[in-house]
């Protein structure tokens, strides 16, 4: 399999590994941004007000059960080919973990802290933005990292409807029965997932207040 992966011919041109890697990364990042715009406010609102928690749980479960292949095909049949169906399918996949992470993070903020914030005269919006969200960041990041892992793995399916990404190698390898190409695709996806996760870990380090870091090691969450 190394033969396929390390053959220089597969590392250049419009169908080469770098192009596919960037396409795959592009699907992943834009999906996460769109999903964040939808899921973070929803999760934050429900977490802050405490109303409608069952909606979040229910919605998450239903979305989790949605087969991505079916969503992708349906959107293609309705709206035509291109990247749009890929984003619809992937965003639906990314919403549940991000929403659940945000909701859980905000619910888990110590009520005493929230009370104190109100006590010093903060408005509700200030309580949410300056106290609850920063305190909830570790769990929000947890949600994002879970979503990212799933999206990177699942973006493979984009190739089924003719779009790009690393899935191209998996699907072409399947059609050609080229074991090396399939495996190279799978390994590259796994590597990309690890890199994206590392990226989030770095971002988390930069943004989460040091006061929230777990004390000691090996502790339970």
């Amino acid at each position, binding site marked *: 399999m190394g033969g396929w992966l390390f053959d220089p011919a597969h590392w250049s041109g419009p169908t080469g590994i770098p192009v596919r890697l960037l396409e795959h990364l592009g699907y992943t990042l834009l999906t996460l941004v769109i999903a964040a715009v939808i899921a973070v406010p929803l999760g934050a609102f429900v977490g802050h007000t405490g109303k409608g928690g069952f909606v979040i749980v229910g919605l998450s479960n239903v979305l989790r059960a949605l087969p991505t292949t079916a969503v992708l095909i349906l959107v293609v049949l309705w709206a035509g080919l291109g990247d749009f169906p890929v984003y619809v399918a992937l965003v639906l996949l990314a919403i549940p973990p991000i929403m659940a992470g945000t909701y859980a993070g905000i619910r888990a903020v110590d009520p005493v802290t929230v009370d104190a914030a109100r006590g010093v005269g903060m408005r509700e919006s200030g309580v949410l933005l300056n106290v609850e969200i920063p305190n909830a960041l570790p769990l929000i990041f947890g949600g994002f990292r879970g979503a990212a892992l799933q999206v990177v793995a699942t973006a493979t399916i984009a190739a089924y409807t003719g779009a790009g990404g690393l899935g191209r190698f998996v699907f072409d390898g399947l*059609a050609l029965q080229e074991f090396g190409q399939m495996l190279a695709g799978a390994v590259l996806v796994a*590597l990309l997932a690890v890199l994206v996760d590392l990226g989030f870990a770095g971002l988390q380090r930069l943004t989460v207040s040091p006061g929230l870091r777990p004390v000691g090691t090996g502790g339970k969450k």
Partner: protein
Amino acid sequence: MKRIATAVAAVMLLSACGGDPLQGGGNNNPAPTDTIVVGSANFPESTVLAEIYAQALAAKGVKISKKLNIGNRELYFKGVQDGSIDLIPEYSGVLLKHVNKEAAEVGSDEVYAALKKALPQGLIVLDKSAAEDKDAVVVTKQIAAQYSLKSIDDLVPYCKDLVFGGPPEFQNRPDGLPGLKAKYACEFKQFKSLDVGGPLTVAGLKDNTVQAADLFTTDAAIKANEFVVLEDPKNVFAAQNVLPLVNEKKASQQVRDTLNAISKKLDTKTLLDLNQKLSAPDKPEPEKVAKEWLASAGL
């Protein structure tokens, strides 16, 4: 995270050590049973033909089980060889090229005779039908007019400027890109992996993502979209008669008679009609389309 990276490296190493198991091919014979497993390739015409075979056999009291819509020949032929499926509708020319890449026969009878000889032991083809469905290089009406294209010969000067679309396996098949290159010296600017004469390929042609594509000559979409099928004077695409590929052990006289009777009634017009019905707005199931045809053919 460092540990994850180590684990990835370990997984890679493991898989690297595995070599290429595809080369190994298991040859374990299945326990003989009296059930015939009918398979089909991953496009509707194949599925409806498989349904026709299956229903006709079932009507004669043969035990049937169906594994339809499996994948392309590269995949399902392994299933035929390892005994996972016993019967599948095939096309003489592409099947011949699959079992013998060097095969040069193009005429219907020559292909059929060569195919009978070339098949691996244990596999046979029954009588060929008159029904033909070839792969073909297809362009839109606009492209045909723009470059005044009638045959692949006319296309040759423009190949390097055009993007070609087809199923991924088209890149490797002798009756695919390699054939076009060898016989016409036509090399496209780029190849785009689409599907097996399905919605992707049609959409790709329509929106000009690809300027030429591989479609089946019996595809109802060709007429519906006024696509132009380019002639193939150098015969990259050999004669393609529909015929059943069968596991010899399962081919009892009754099975042979039943399937040969079907092949006698199948012609190219039948394929066009079947495809037309499948793509009708009410989207009937292949099972139903097959049943209707069998009734109308008196089988």
